[in-house]
């Protein structure tokens, strides 16, 4: 008996057991999901980097926000309010399961190289507050990456309630509170009669034009806003997804914009570019900031808070794309039953475990082999190219579904959908092609070599891997079938009513 097919109101008198489960399922409030989304998308990590651009950072955030963040947010809100299940479901509805697989794989694949890099950053931040010399220790870095990943996997295995509780709390404690402190100190600095370290004239709103680098600067910054759609996969866990998910999106966009822009400006007011010293990551900039106010003792506290924010973001990421992979795997038989197993809390522990094994291997390579750590950023470039393919498919799906299923009830309808999708597609394609422009760090060959490396990696890890999953799929691997394309987990009460 599937709970998913049961209308809760009808079941009240007859099907006590399923009803009991349904009654327990709306475990995430819209406020919690808002902070989960904030933890996925934004942090204070970028503040010193963007502070380098001073007042220009406003425009560097505003342009990508209009061209990418707003369309991404509104379209995710519409799709999630009509089709629970996240990206796999939206793309499958529009283009069928094979393209749905490609989309969800593109979302999942980029996490493979993301976790080791993020946790290496956690290690360097931790080293800064414990002993900065540890930051260059391969052993310390490997232990932190491996230890923290497995701790996060165990926490995620405790269920969505634990994931949502910790990730939202982490974003409040690690991003919102230190962000308010940071901005407060910046304002106090200016109010105390100090001149801003970065020029703050109207003409400084425009970043300096330096040819292709400036274009790269603006377009690449659209990726500052990636991840808004990740939590859509959990939309069924909201009480009223159709109304609440759009609300989640609107609050998230507002909070993220405020955090990004104000934190960058606060650092720019106080810390001159020449003393930002970014090899120590975000911490040296914060140390400089607190040094100005004779508040050096605050540095380790903020360090721990920032670590907490990064970990909360990681927990939210861990539960997101892997759920999408699980759902399409169960409905279409793309992944072996072993990976479809759920623990008591309904979490895909076997996927976490195998990703943990891969993460541990990558962590060792990253920490102990200099050539790998040197070139690691290139793997991240490849995976973000793959992620952009997912966004392209999302925008195309939104347009197709508006046309093919116009009467499908939607909790929220994106105004001027075609224009929104057009902007999103334009920005995504531009970011994709600019991804083939060698960045400052690449000095091991010509542009052609770089293009071939990135294109090869994208082809293998993106469509290549998705194609392989499609080839090896077995009909008997399907463990759940949805004749209406509903989620392999229980669908929302809203769906049940329809």
């Amino acid at each position: 008996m599937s709970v998913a097919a049961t209308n809760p109101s009808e079941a009240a008198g007859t099907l006590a057991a399923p009803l009991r489960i349904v009654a327990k399922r709306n475990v995430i409030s819209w406020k919690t999901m808002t902070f989960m989304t904030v933890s996925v998308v934004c942090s204070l990590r970028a503040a010193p980097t963007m502070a380098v651009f001073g007042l220009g950072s406003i425009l560097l955030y505003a342009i990508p926000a209009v061209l990418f963040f707003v369309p991404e947010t509104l379209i995710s809100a519409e799709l999630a309010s009509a089709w629970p299940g996240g990206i796999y479901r939206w793309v499958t509805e529009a283009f069928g399961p094979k393209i749905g697989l490609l989309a969800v794989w593109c979302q999942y694949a980029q996490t493979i190289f993301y976790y080791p890099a993020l946790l290496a950053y956690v290690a360097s931040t931790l080293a800064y507050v414990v002993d900065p010399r540890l930051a260059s220790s391969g052993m310390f870095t490997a232990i932190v990456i491996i230890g923290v990943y497995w701790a996060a996997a165990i926490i995620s295995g405790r269920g969505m309630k634990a994931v949502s509780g910790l990730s939202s709390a982490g974003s409040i404690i690690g991003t919102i509170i230190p962000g308010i402190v940071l901005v407060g100190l910046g304002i106090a600095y200016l109010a105390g009669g100090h001149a801003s370290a970065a020029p703050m004239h109207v003409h400084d709103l425009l970043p300096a034009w330096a040819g292709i680098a400036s274009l790269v600067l603006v377009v690449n910054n659209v990726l500052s806003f990636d991840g808004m759609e990740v939590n859509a996969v959990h939309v069924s866990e909201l009480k009223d997804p159709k109304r609440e998910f759009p609300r989640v999106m609107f609050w998230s966009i507002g909070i993220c914009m405020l955090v990004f822009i104000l934190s960058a400006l606060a650092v720019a007011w106080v810390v001159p570019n020449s003393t930002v010293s970014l090899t120590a990551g975000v911490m040296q900039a914060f140390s400089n900031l607190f040094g100005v106010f004779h508040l050096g003792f605050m540095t380790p506290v903020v360090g721990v808070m920032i670590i907490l924010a990064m970990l909360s973001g990681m927990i939210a990421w861990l539960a997101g794309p892997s759920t999408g992979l699980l759902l399409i795997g169960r409905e279409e038989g793309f992944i072996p039953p072993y990976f479809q197993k759920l623990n008591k809390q309904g979490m895909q522990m076997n996927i976490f475990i195998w990703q943990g094994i891969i993460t541990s291997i990558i962590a060792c390579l990253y920490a102990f082999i200099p050539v790998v750590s040197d070139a690691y950023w290139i793997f991240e470039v490849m995976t973000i190219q793959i992620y952009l393919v997912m966004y392209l498919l999302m925008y195309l799906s939104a347009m197709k579904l508006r046309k093919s299923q116009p009467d499908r009830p939607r909790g929220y309808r994106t105004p001027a959908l075609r224009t929104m999708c057009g902007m999103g597609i334009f920005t995504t394609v531009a970011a994709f092609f600019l991804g083939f422009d060698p960045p400052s760090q690449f000095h091991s060959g010509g542009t052609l070599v770089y293009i071939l490396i990135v294109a090869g990696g994208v082809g293998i890890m993106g469509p290549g891997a998705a194609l392989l999953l499609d080839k090896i799929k077995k009909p008997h691997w399907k463990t759940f079938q949805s004749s209406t394309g509903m989620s392999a987990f229980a669908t929302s009460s809203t769906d049940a009513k329809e």
Partner: protein
Amino acid sequence: MIQELDISSPVGEHPIPERHAYTHNNRSLYAFTAVFIAVLIIVSFVTFTRPTNNATATTKAVALETLLKKEGLPLPTSLSEISNSLGTSAAGVCDTSGYNLTDAIFNQQFSVGATAGRTLPVEREVLDGQLAILDTYCPGRVSAFVRHFHAYDLYQLSRP
């Protein structure tokens, strides 16, 4: 209408694929996490070495300010800002410059987004400023730092 093909296997030991059938609360997990964070803060308070602001720190700050001025780089508004944040040894900068792992972190610092997959152009003033700090506080780290970053194609922020 949804049909479940097989609710007993191979979905694992839990036949009903219900993510939502929570039977326990997470109070112990939250409590453990809170204690862990508190311990981490206490440890970091004990181990974190705050920059020492004394006569030596001021001398170093003067030297750095002179070098920044000579290179035409932006200056902090006062000497005490430098001495308060870098102290006598600029340990946070010196101990993290010119090593493979920390240089990788530098690259990551210039990447944007939740998944940090796209790097922004590296701004020249940032590297030049860090070089000036190394030259003043730990000249021994300069060569390793320059070796790593000399070939970077840098973004020039300052206006002509």
